[in-house]
């Protein structure tokens, strides 16, 4: 796929296998390390598994919020790149993110954000290979607000739970 890409997520299809976390951490850390994965599957309610990763908002509030110029936009893929040497783990990007996506590296002093694996996201590959298709690579389209999709794990959980379990049950098991 040429040009900027986006990772489409169909939450109801997520099996909760977390192989995306395995693939991501293997590529970025050389280890199986769920907490260091740039995509994290939240399971705030059993059965409601929500893969959570950067939404690449059109106005990139995280990039703007960084006082150290540690975050930049990759011109090829559209991903947010973290310059680990400049990041001092202040957390302002997390506060600025409407979906609260970035999180600290569990052992190092910098934030981690999905870098789209340079254009070939391994999370999507593993999800496709297993035919779950909860994640898909799409090209990044114009005239569409990706930021409008950016929701926190709690907000997404609520939405997906209502879809899977119905409003009443969702309220009972979560609120």
């Amino acid at each position, binding site marked *: 796929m040429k040009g900027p890409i986006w990772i489409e997520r169909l939450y*109801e*299809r997520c*099996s*909760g*296998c*977390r*192989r995306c976390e*395995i693939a991501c*951490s*293997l590529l970025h*850390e*050389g*280890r*199986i*390390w*769920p*907490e*260091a994965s740039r995509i*994290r*599957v*939240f*399971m*705030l*309610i*059993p*059965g409601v598994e929500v893969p*959570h990763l950067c939404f690449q908002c059109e106005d990139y509030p995280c990039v703007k919020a960084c006082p150290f110029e540690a975050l930049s936009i990759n011109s090829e893929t559209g991903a947010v790149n973290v310059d680990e040497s400049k990041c001092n*783990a202040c*957390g302002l990007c*997390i506060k600025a993110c409407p979906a*609260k*996506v*970035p*999180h*600290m590296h*569990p*052992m190092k002093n910098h*934030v981690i954000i999905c870098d789209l694996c340079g254009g070939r996201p391994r999370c999507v590959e593993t999800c496709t*290979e*297993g*035919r*779950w298709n909860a994640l898909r690579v799409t090209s990044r389209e114009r005239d569409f607000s990706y930021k409008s999709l950016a929701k*926190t*794990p709690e907000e997404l959980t609520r939405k997906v739970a209502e879809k*899977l*379990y*119905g409003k*009443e*049950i969702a309220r*009972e*098991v*979560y609120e």
Partner: protein
Amino acid sequence: MRGYAGKFLEIDLSSGAIKELKFSEKILVDYIGGRGLATKILWDRLGSRWEKVDPLGPENILLVLTGPLTGYAPGTKICISGKSPQSNGVIGSTVAGEFGVDLKCAGYDGLIITGEAEKPSYIFICDNHVEIKDAKAIWGKKARESLKYLVKKSIEDIKTIKQNYGEVKEPSILYVGPAGENRTRVAAVMAKYTHGAGYGGYGGVMGSKKLKAIVVKGFGPLPEVHDLDTVLQFFREISKRNFELEHFRRFGTGAGGYYHGAVQSSEPIRNWQEEWHNRDSYRPEEFDKFWVKKYWGDFGCAITCLKLAVLRDGKFKGAICDNPDYENQAYVGTNLGIFSPEDNIYLSYIINELGMCGIQGGAVLGFAAELYEKGILSEKDLEGIKPEWGDTEAFAALAEKIAYRQGIGDILAEGVYRAARKISKIKGIDVSKYAVHVKGVAVGAHGVRSGKDDVAQDIGYACSVQAGDHTSAASLPPDRDSPAPGELRAMFLDSAVLCMFTTTLPFFKLEDNEIFRFYEAVTGYNLSREEWYNEKALRILHLQRTMLLLGGPDACWRPETDDDNPPRFWEPLPSGPCKGKTLDRKKFEENRLNYYRSVGWDERGIPKPETLEKLGLHEVIAKLKEVGYID
């Protein structure tokens, strides 16, 4: 040894003392982890006075152990063990979920939990922060409410430890429901809404320790492995083969509710009075109607054979359950005369909410229903409940009574074997023939009379050191790897702690040489097939056998009478294409003797001194002499 986090946590609930401990490389090489290591720990700590240890008393030890392969093989399990309140021996009971991965990522290979808390408590682990917390807010609560509280509370607690981290993911949680809190012997150690380690009855052990839950969050990586490239090659290879299992992935074990009945005549129906049915209402697609997730699994799983079923309307509205999986389709379905998916989903949900094992709970419900059918238990005995076959609401009501030990529930909470003993005494009639169990453990939903079910041969349950556990059936030859692998292979899976479904099924498996190479790639230890089957597995088997025979304090098994099938399995099948079939007593006894010989037991089923000597189990010889099993 690679693949291990390198340390274990010992938590004494009586004193609140928490300490780290390590095992020598020799112990890890010999006993691996999970079930093998549990057996070793229990023997070392309790072996000398095993028969006096009350499984539901403070002296029992609850073990929660990973294995070296946990997290590296697709599909993750954790092994729960201790002295079993069902068999009075040792059972390695596994449950799926991320718990094993979180525990290893927190830096621990396992938990050794001793003593008894003064008040309801739960253990909270966030990396090296380990705390015993008050469980007052959730004691008495069922699954959904308990989990809701624990997830929210634990995320807050983790956020205070990991400040400025960003959003915190939920920790992994093992817990008990009311059935465990009230020390029933049919309680499971639960994970998520639907997963349970049921065999062994360790939910009751947690309850006896006033331990409501164990919460763990690990921020580190999985431990280093010996050869990552090879590990990943196996991971990919296993996944590739799993991906090819189109129908197993599509329907999971839930195709079994129809298949094991209609095709194999091996499904429990009305307390095992029959094993054949061909009800269209129980075909896989009838369950599919209720699925909101068609592929559901746990960490690393390639099959994701679980389904998530929800009843969004109708009289059982609000129920959430998995498929249900086959064991629940059978035990809280056909075994109770229930042939409707909706009713089966509802009853599975009730059982899960109560934290009850579907097999042990379903077995005792079926047992009670047959006693009611035969007029032995009256409506008065059952306090107004009329458990007629197929009456889902009656069974749900009875299950509640069991979980809370109310009225007749207090007796049934003891499981089929002990309930039969008590009821026989009260009623003055021998009802043991209606109790379908082996050594206190209700057998899996795979009958042996038709000879068509691969899971267990005629000696499968009778000779297993895990008694009725269908995931660990004894086999001839003991190292059988086809069609269904035998107990010694199951023991490897339960010790290295990995999922049976992704690596070992009758119709698909990783060959022995492959699985041991996988183990070597993780640990760096070159384990040959011979070394496993002729030495290490036998050592664990003999220790498990010894503790099973020692038993006590409330029951003791004799091989001549208890290495046997339940009485019902000797009755001819009354219906279906296998009508009239049953087991051949002579053949069974021959096979049993053959099995004894093959694993190094004498003709009475007692481990031979020379076998024990060869395996280096000298203290076992002394113990068996002490109790008079060997001269």
